[in-house]
């Protein structure tokens, strides 16, 4: 395997105050507000994990990605699921290589069991999974570790994380304790499908990521779906904002807004009409009950409200 030489990058330092953090995030096309920037800044400065909670599709995962990109760090992502265990989250031994090693030793007639044991359980045969990767030294500085949707794992794994997140060390029985020279930047996200234990939250800075207001959402849309017409974007945002006030099983997140604007653009629609909404509602709403509720008269009603509001605003100016 040919190894590509890493280009020597100048280490991007972490921001020195809240303003810089705000700027850093916006340089990565992330529209943040001051409260979120404060939480991010604290977590970067004090080396504590940042715990982000919020509904699906409000941009929690995105923060980790943007931080990795703008700080020039490696992004290590651990996607959680029920039954996640040490072998797939932390480390695993390369069994086939170990077997071959044993056979080779056997063929060469090496009978020294202790030496063979030491040899087999060495770093050479260790497969680093995300958590261990995050502790590995890196030329670009410590990586960004994203522990995504922590609420999907079981309590056992959560408890395991306690040691990792407070001391940034992992104990491998065969080798010993691996400790990070510099702690990684840790972002933990949760969709609140279940409550995370207080013991874990206590080790983190907490932030609830909410749906953005209309202005911020429009700003996000102009960055993430720039091809869409400005007037259409405005209508899309107004429509989605109003939809979030309706009693739905799952209200659309920012991700859905972006998808919808892009979809409408792809269909060459430059202005919202009741028909256009009905045809593309599946991009926005993901439950049949919700679609049935909005499709038709309800959508038309919301659309009318938006249009009359815009007309009023124009008349005023």
């Amino acid at each position, binding site marked *: 395997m040919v190894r590509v030489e890493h280009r020597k990058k100048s280490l991007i330092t972490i921001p020195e105050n809240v303003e810089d953090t705000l700027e850093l995030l916006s340089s990565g096309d992330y529209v943040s507000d001051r409260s979120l920037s404060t939480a991010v800044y604290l977590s970067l400065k004090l080396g504590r994990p940042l715990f982000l909670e919020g509904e699906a599709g409000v941009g929690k995962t995105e923060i980790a990605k943007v931080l990795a990109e703008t700080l020039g760090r490696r992004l290590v992502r651990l996607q959680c699921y029920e039954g996640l*265990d040490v072998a797939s989250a932390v480390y695993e031994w390369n069994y086939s290589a170990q077997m071959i090693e044993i056979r080779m030793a056997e063929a060469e007639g090496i009978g020294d069991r202790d030496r063979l044991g030491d040899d087999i359980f060495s770093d050479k045969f260790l497969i680093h999974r995300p958590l261990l990767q995050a502790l590995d030294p890196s030329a670009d500085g410590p990586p960004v570790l994203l522990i995504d949707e922590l609420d999907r794992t079981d309590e056992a794994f959560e408890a395991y994380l306690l040691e990792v997140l407070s001391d940034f060390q992992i104990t491998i029985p065969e080798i010993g304790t691996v400790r990070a020279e510099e702690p990684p930047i840790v972002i933990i996200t949760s969709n609140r499908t279940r409550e995370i234990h207080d013991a874990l939250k*206590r080790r983190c800075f907490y932030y609830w990521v909410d749906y953005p207001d209309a202005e911020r959402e429009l700003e996000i849309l102009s960055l993430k779906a720039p091809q869409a017409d400005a007037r259409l974007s405005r209508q899309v945002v107004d429509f989605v904002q109003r939809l979030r006030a309706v009693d739905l*099983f799952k209200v659309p997140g920012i991700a859905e807004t972006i998808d919808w604007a892009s979809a409408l653009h792809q269909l060459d629609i430059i202005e919202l009409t009741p028909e256009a909404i009905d045809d593309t509602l599946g991009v926005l709403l993901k439950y049949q009950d919700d679609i049935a509720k909005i499709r038709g008269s309800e959508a038309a009603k919301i659309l009318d409200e938006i249009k009359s509001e815009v007309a009023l605003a124009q008349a005023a100016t």
Partner: protein
Amino acid sequence: MLDDLAVADDTGPGKIANNIMHFARVLRMAGLPVGPGKVIEGIRAVETVGLDNRDDFYWALHAVFVNRRDQREIFDQAFHIFWRNPKLLERMASLVLPSFVDPDAQQNAEEMNRRLAEALKQDQVEMPGEGEGGQDEEDPEITIDAVMTFSANELLQKTDFEKMSSEELEAAKRAIARMRLPIMEVPIRRFRRDARGRRIDMRATLRAALRGGGATIPLQYRKRQRRHPPLVVLCDISGSMSRYSRMILHFMHAVTNDRDRVHTFLFGTRLTNVTRQLRYKDVDEALDKVAEAVDDWSGGTRIGHALHDFNTDWSRRVLGQGAVVLLITDGLDRDAADGLDKEIERLHMSSRRLIWLNPLLRYERYEPKSLGARAMLPHTDEFRSIHNLESLEQLAEALSRADGHGTFQSNSWQEAAQ
């Protein structure tokens, strides 16, 4: 910001740390889990962001002290009151604390002491071999005693909760406290070493091979672990259910403290999550907390409304891992089953098994005629009675069957009434 701090800071510079500590104490009094570690962290956080900007100050403390979404409101109010004039709150706290909280706490302590004393006394009475009489003399007496308790138990088993005397109720409560709920177990994605497993445990195999010097490789096996799915209880506490729901609460308390992953909700006209309250080990303390949390005891029932709230706010959070749902209600709905069919359908679809427990089933001629009952029947996997100890025990038995699907078909409600 600086002006405000000047007020908070009237005893000279360097007192900001002190004020943060007092602020933390206010939050603690308001019910937020703020320990000493958090205070230190809060001070560090404020040092880090500086004092130039009121918003930064606010959000720095917010990031440290707030742990859950529902704490934001409390934090916000406390922040705005406290940082205007911390001395005021301090004084108020010192005034309020001794006069209000203390006597209450004392009374509680007294009650606890009394019960503790009673418990100890009982232990002494039951201690065998205390008297001077020989073993031979005592033996027959014990046997008779056992028979009597057995027959008393037998009677207790079949008595309707509604018709029990207070003494019998006490006995029933004690029986319930001993009850366990063995829910069936389902395989999960984790593995455990097991000689009878079918998958090879490579890690163990390699270790075993090394032990033998690598000459042979004795295969080791592993098997999927099993655990019970979460249990979610939705219990009706409206007027028609009041006698039963109290007994059922005792039952739920026993179950909650027996295992993890039990979520309990009460509903009458609105839905209340009482999972945390039921976690108190002492049953009286737990039920007191429940009573505090619930406003709509013995009122009307709005089943559809309650289920709607459950579906939107909680179902994704508590039904995530294939939960078994116990719905305890008599199906008498004030809203005439408005919107109920849709909500119960969604609940049914998102749970592993939906078991409807209905105390009215004890009447032989009961027929699910009410609109609510008719809307719910097609969407229940099992339909059972819950009106005496025996039925609770049968429930425990039914839940432990792994293949318990549709043991009682929804149309065979008359058999279930037996």
